[in-house]
């Protein structure tokens, strides 16, 4: 299996191990998943959200979802934003309190997100395009984290 993606590594799916055949059957999907990770974490056009800030937020969301190893990997590139990887920190020290509160809510309390959460970001001076960028980052991570958790269970069940 030539497939080498972050999701498969974190799920513990090795080229010749359990579940490799099923995953190989969806190889294109795993390749596109990796491309999506690159697009949200390391886009050519960062906008106001630097690669370092993006991985810090990614690490934070992984931690909120109990994915410690994935969080540690993302946090490794967070540099000046490393504090934000810890959900205990509210982002006020970085001037990002609204952004961080929004990301936490979208990540773990999606159903209760309301129009005021968006207008709050707009009032805090976040441009519409940059709100979409935050939502895409959060949304991709929800997918990535669930793919990893699901694959890990699948590997255990079909071993």
């Amino acid at each position, binding site marked *: 299996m030539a497939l080498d993606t972050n999701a498969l590594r974190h799920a513990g799916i090795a080229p010749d191990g359990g579940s490799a055949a099923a995953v190989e059957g969806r190889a294109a999907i795993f390749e596109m998943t990796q491309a999506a990770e690159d697009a949200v974490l390391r886009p050519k056009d960062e906008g106001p959200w630097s690669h370092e800030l993006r991985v810090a937020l990614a690490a934070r969301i992984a931690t909120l979802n109990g994915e410690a190893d994935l969080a540690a990997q993302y946090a490794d590139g967070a540099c000046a934003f490393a504090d934000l990887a810890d959900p205990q920190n509210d982002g006020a020290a970085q001037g990002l309190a609204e952004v961080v509160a929004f990301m936490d809510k979208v990540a773990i309390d999606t159903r209760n997100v309301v129009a005021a959460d968006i207008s709050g970001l707009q009032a805090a001076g976040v441009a519409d395009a940059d709100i979409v960028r935050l939502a895409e980052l959060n949304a991709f991570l929800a997918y990535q984290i669930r793919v990893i958790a699901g694959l890990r*269970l699948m590997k255990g*069940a079909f071993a």
Partner: protein
Amino acid sequence: MTKVITKFTRNLPHWQPRVTPVDLKEASEEQLDALQVTPSNTKVSEYVLTLAHDVESLKVRSPLFNAIMYDKGGMSRAERELGALGASMVNHCIYCAAVHAARHAQLEKSTDVTDKLFRDGAKADLSERDRAIFDFAVALSEAPSQAGPAHMDALKSAGLDEAEVLDLILSAALFGWANRLMHVLGDPVRLPEAAV
């Protein structure tokens, strides 16, 4: 006046963005390329024009979405829709739930399952196989840690093979993504008759 829809329905609402979508007349080359339209094409949805603000993500997401929901083999299309619906009900994404409940009903040529789910919620009376599929999608969507080996056992007991389970994981996870765009960036509304 538009009215925001708060109850699950198969009757597709209009999606009204909470941010201003990209104006097609001002779209960049890269945005037009990702949208696969020419400036004269006005048929692009407001949702896609909203996502065009993050063109690099949009470009990779559309083919990934199509592959997970429609690629051949593995789990049936209707069952992938059930996975998507489980996620959308957890996240209370009225728009996604409407689209995927309608597709499920269309593929199954029956509204029975989605009628029950919308009427009775997650505890609705389902077949063993649908029950296992829906419960796993719900657990994974609520929090990944809520899905466990017992869910996998139920899926295997109901007769799902590994390729089908993989497709279920992908479709439920994908709607963790889609719901966080649809439900977060816009409202499901009914437009007044005159505006339709």
